[in-house]
């Protein structure tokens, strides 16, 4: 049985301006011990997806449909109390901004202890000892002293470590990291990425890492899902995404990024236009107004929504281009320019 399975997830938010379709038909699965990278720009639905798995959407504001199975348990139809029992213990989340994700009024130790005692019937002393162990485990110096510090007394990197300690305090089977290093400096980012990788190996948990940085997913992920306007446009192993990307949006992302490991490009190749509004998602393929290849599909891009289809060996892509055209475009147009 797959450990985490998301089937046709839809998360819509009714607003005064119309229905915001943040996630609109998303399916993927993840095994224990594996890391899935979800890549996309702001508004692509990557964070909304993770909040749905964690059951953190406010009841009444979000309309969620579809199915999410965590180790066989369905989460979308589960009651808030049932999800609450899983949160922390079976699944945990690391947020982008540790300063706002932590309570400024309580010490870091107290916040770890609280989560631990909700799920484990232990005394405060035992929980405190566990908190110190966790802080030590994530590389915070002098954990027995720092356990009594407040979040504002930590530096950004330390705070992110403390939050990882908090998330891991109950050995969750699923860890979701939403832009865990975006707010951090590059040397600290490297430390945190190493830490997540080491901890995953140790606990054999499933990890979802959400980011806009293709470099970060390349470091960590086994599989990568590229999202655009609430849907997956490409899904494959990390190697394939970088060696043989198939979707024009993925090409656009790769062309937009200056890279320091290759010859410097004379000019970046940006994607034209801006990401669409999620209230008026373009018809057909949502990417078609920005796509240079949409006109090669005899109008199908404007009218028909492409399904995410397997092109062989598990590489899935949602695009109307025929495999031959795609191959040709990648090899002649895109690859030489990257």
């Amino acid at each position: 049985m797959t450990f985490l399975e998301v089937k046709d997830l839809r998360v819509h938010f009714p607003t005064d301006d119309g229905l915001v379709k943040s996630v609109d038909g998303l399916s993927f699965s993840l095994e224990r011990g594996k890391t899935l990278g979800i890549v996309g720009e702001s508004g692509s639905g990557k964070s909304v997806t993770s909040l749905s798995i964690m059951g953190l959407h406010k009841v009444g504001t979000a309309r969620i449909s579809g199915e999410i199975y965590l180790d066989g348990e369905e989460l979308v139809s589960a009651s808030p109390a049932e999800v609450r029992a899983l949160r922390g213990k079976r699944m945990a989340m690391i947020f982008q901004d540790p300063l706002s994700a932590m309570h400024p009024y309580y010490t870091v130790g107290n916040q770890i202890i609280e989560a631990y005692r909700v799920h484990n019937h232990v005394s405060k002393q035992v929980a405190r000892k566990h908190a110190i162990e966790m802080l030590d485990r994530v590389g915070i110096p002098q954990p027995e002293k720092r356990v009594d510090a407040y979040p504002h007394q930590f530096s950004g990197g330390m705070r992110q470590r403390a939050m990882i300690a908090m998330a891991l305090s109950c050995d969750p089977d699923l860890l979701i990291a939403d832009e865990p290093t975006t707010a951090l400096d590059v040397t600290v980012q490297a430390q945190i990425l190493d830490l997540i990788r080491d901890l995953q190996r140790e606990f054999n948990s499933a990890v979802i890492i959400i980011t806009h940085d293709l470099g970060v997913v390349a470091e960590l992920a086994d599989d990568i899902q590229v999202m655009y306007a609430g849907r997956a446009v490409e899904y494959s192993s990390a190697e394939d995404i970088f060696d043989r990307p198939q979707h024009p949006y993925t090409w656009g992302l790769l062309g937009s990024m200056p890279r320091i490991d290759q010859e410097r490009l004379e000019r970046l190749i940006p994607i034209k236009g801006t990401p669409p509004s999620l209230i008026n998602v373009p018809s057909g393929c949502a990417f078609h107004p920005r796509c240079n290849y949409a006109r090669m599909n005899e109008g199908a891009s404007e009218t028909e929504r492409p399904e995410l289809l397997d092109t062989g060996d598990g590489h899935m892509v949602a695009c109307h281009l025929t495999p031959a055209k795609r191959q040709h475009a990648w090899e002649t147009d895109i690859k030489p320019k990257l």
Partner: protein
Amino acid sequence: MTTANTEPTAVPGTTEPRLGEELLKVTGLTKHFPIRKGVLQRQSGAVQAVDGLNFTVTRGETLSLVGESGCGKTTTGRLLTRLLEPTSGQIIFEGRDISHLSEGRMRPLRRDVQMIFQDPYGSLNPRHTVGKIVGAPFKLQHVKTEHGVKKAVQGLLELVGLSPEHYNRYPHEFSGGQRQRIGIARTLALRPKLIVADEPVSALDVSIQAQVVNLLEDLQDEFDLTYVMIAHDLSVVRHVSDRVAVMYLGKIVELADRKSLYEQPMHPYTVALLSAVPVPDTKRKTKQERIRLQGDVPSPINPPAACRFHTRCWKAQEICRTTEPPLLQLAPGHQAACHFPENQPQDKPVAPAPSSDTKPS
């Protein structure tokens, strides 16, 4: 002491100073923010945000200041635009010392020195229309335009890739990338000579970031602009810069042209920074071991003595704790402040060898 990467090209028929000449020179630039305590507000210490910078900027080039948070790059930008007054040191712009000019005497110079801000949301007044925002420089500087301010503003909007019809709209009607374009249009209004851009693309999405980077490059070509770019993204910096200055705790630790900085970094901090950048290549993980720097950047209130990097440096020896390494030219167009630099040219010894066990690696 500098070698611009851009070939100096003459501007025909003008008496304007030419590309490749020195536009800005900074010597010993220092900014300490006092920390006051107690009822008497006595000074108990100082945040040494910027501590003795020396560099020049030549006309038409892009110099980038990079470093991690707290290294003083933003403070430096604010000193160059004189939004802050330096504690000591000199800023010489076109031969004129502007380090301590009063606000009033600085004002005419603001035409020549402009700034692009990081946050496209915070830097535009939400209650002003785009027309008013982009037209403000004309009004403030009492600049008469040939066909009126409105025409000029609409021209600017077109220049940065917005539609002239956007004139009467408000900032909230635009996306982040478009707002950054509005900010750039305002910056360009008076055709400045020097633009200090503080993290101009870091708040933008990847695809939009590339659009704005290309726009900045096009504008530079068109108007012979000089940029001082402040950024932390080393990949973007490599793409846009001619020269790069790496800062650590208020000091420049390395200053070199792009190619030699990225290909032969000399300062261990630069080496560590470059090795920490995640690259979109799944094979690299195994190819190259990353240098893991331990801990965080120390506090600029009480920076480590001598070489400020010695507490985190894997090459540090006794001399690093006692003697501060000066910023020296170790290769053509390449300065570094380190007792034990990496990638040193084999044939050239370090200028004044501080220690006999200096070994090129």
